[in-house]
């Protein structure tokens, strides 16, 4: 078995410091808002609207619904900000509200709940396209909507983990905080989510396009910290 490595890489220290500064700024804005400065909430809104919308959209998959849920999330935050414990991070608190609201909405939607991956048009198209020339496949691989369709075919906990990780760029610690679980549990969940998504993604498109898009030397260069 592989021995436990020291994960404290050199680049993590400035990132943590940066996150801490962001959190402190958020807390200052929250305090300003609670003291009656309504513009502070506008600042928070503009700062986090993209993150919240991406999380919600990634989970529910519908732009109109995502917009409404985003509004509801900020409305809930606005009304319950006085109950926010300022010793935790505002961003993770906000992301937790957003993902929970989005999951509730997705659960209530039977259409997505019983979505059949085999019925995906992207799947059938991709199977037919495998015989075609690679550039067309490459273009389709990066098709935004098709990736979303595959994402929507994943179970909700997996979808939540993938969206938090890749749509909102949260770290593993932040994901654990949003999901209210340990870092190990978040890591396991994310690992399973990746496997499920990769399985569906590979089933849809195969490895040919991936190998074409990512040659070996590029792959190695991408991993250099």
């Amino acid at each position: 078995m592989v021995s436990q490595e020291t994960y404290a890489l050199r680049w993590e220290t400035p990132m943590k410091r940066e996150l801490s500064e962001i959190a402190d700024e958020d807390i200052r804005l929250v305090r300003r808002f609670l003291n009656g400065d309504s513009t502070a909430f506008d600042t928070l809104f503009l700062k986090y609207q993209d993150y919240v919308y991406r999380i919600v959209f990634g989970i529910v998959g519908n732009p109109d619904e995502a917009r409404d849920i985003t509004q509801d999330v900020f409305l809930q935050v606005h009304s319950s900000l006085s109950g926010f414990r300022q010793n935790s991070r505002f961003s993770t608190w906000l992301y937790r509200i957003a993902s929970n609201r989005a999951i509730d909405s997705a659960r209530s939607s039977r259409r997505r709940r019983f979505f059949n991956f085999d019925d995906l048009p992207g799947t059938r198209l991709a199977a037919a396209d495998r015989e075609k020339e690679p550039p067309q496949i490459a273009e389709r691989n990066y098709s935004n909507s098709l990736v979303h369709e595959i994402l929507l075919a994943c179970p909700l906990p997996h979808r939540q983990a993938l969206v938090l990780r890749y749509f909102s760029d949260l770290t593993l610690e932040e994901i654990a905080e949003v999901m209210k679980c340990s870092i190990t549990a978040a890591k396991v969940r994310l690992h399973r989510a990746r496997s499920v998504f990769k399985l569906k993604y590979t089933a849809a498109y195969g490895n040919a396009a991936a190998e074409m898009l990512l040659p070996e030397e590029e792959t190695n260069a991408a991993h250099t910290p």
Partner: protein
Amino acid sequence: MPHTPPDNSSDLTCSQTAALIPDYLDQRVGIDMQDKIRLHLKKCDRCRSELVSCMHSEQALRAAGQKIVVPEGLLTQFTALLDSQPRRAERRQWRQPMLLAPFAAVAFLLWVGLHRAQNPAHAPVIPNADNGTRPVTLQVAESAGPREIMPSTPVTKMLSIKSQPLHRMHSAIPSALLPVSVAKNIPADKISSISTMDRIDIYAYKSNSRAIRENSTDSTPDVDLVVHDEERGFTASSRIARVDSSDTESEVLRFSEEDNSNESLLRPPLDFDSSGTHAAKEVE
């Protein structure tokens, strides 16, 4: 692709490498481990393919996330939504006093009842016998008990009024006026008839006998009906006004000049059951 096993024990196996690939992609492994993984990947086509597959799916996810277009004007819409919230709260605040509305209504009705008790002009009006166009005004008398108004003179006629309209009259008298009794100022000789039915004593009282005498051909008397319910302790009088003697079929009560005599006080015997209001008929 054929699976390439590691050359020596210090190298990673394929399962170990596959388990480390996510951390490797997240750059969460140390530099030494990165070197080991790279070394294994150079030798193992299968693990390299796995790495490429993982990278590609992650890259597709990141690209899809970055391509999400956040709708414009979210803050403006949110501000508008937020502005509508206090108005809703205000409406809710206004709803709370509305809970007092039933109590206010009850208080108003009580006030109206008391006001009418003090002012007999606002006594309740009962539709008249035939078609409800002629009002019958109930008047509450001021007196002691009903026994005091028992006539000293012989009772000339018995007036029977069916129970149904009596109950209507009874229910039409506001309870705020109870208990009442027959007025002391009704002289005993003015009592024209007494009837008892269902323990309800009815005193027909001619209040405008002079007018009758002066206009005997066209008697249009006002008649007071004094109603006493002994069981319920209820006594009230009612005035039947504008009785038209020419229309005998529709008369409720008709008094004659000889109303103190033994002649018929009420004629003809009328039964207003069909009208549904109240019925009166002459009985011996």
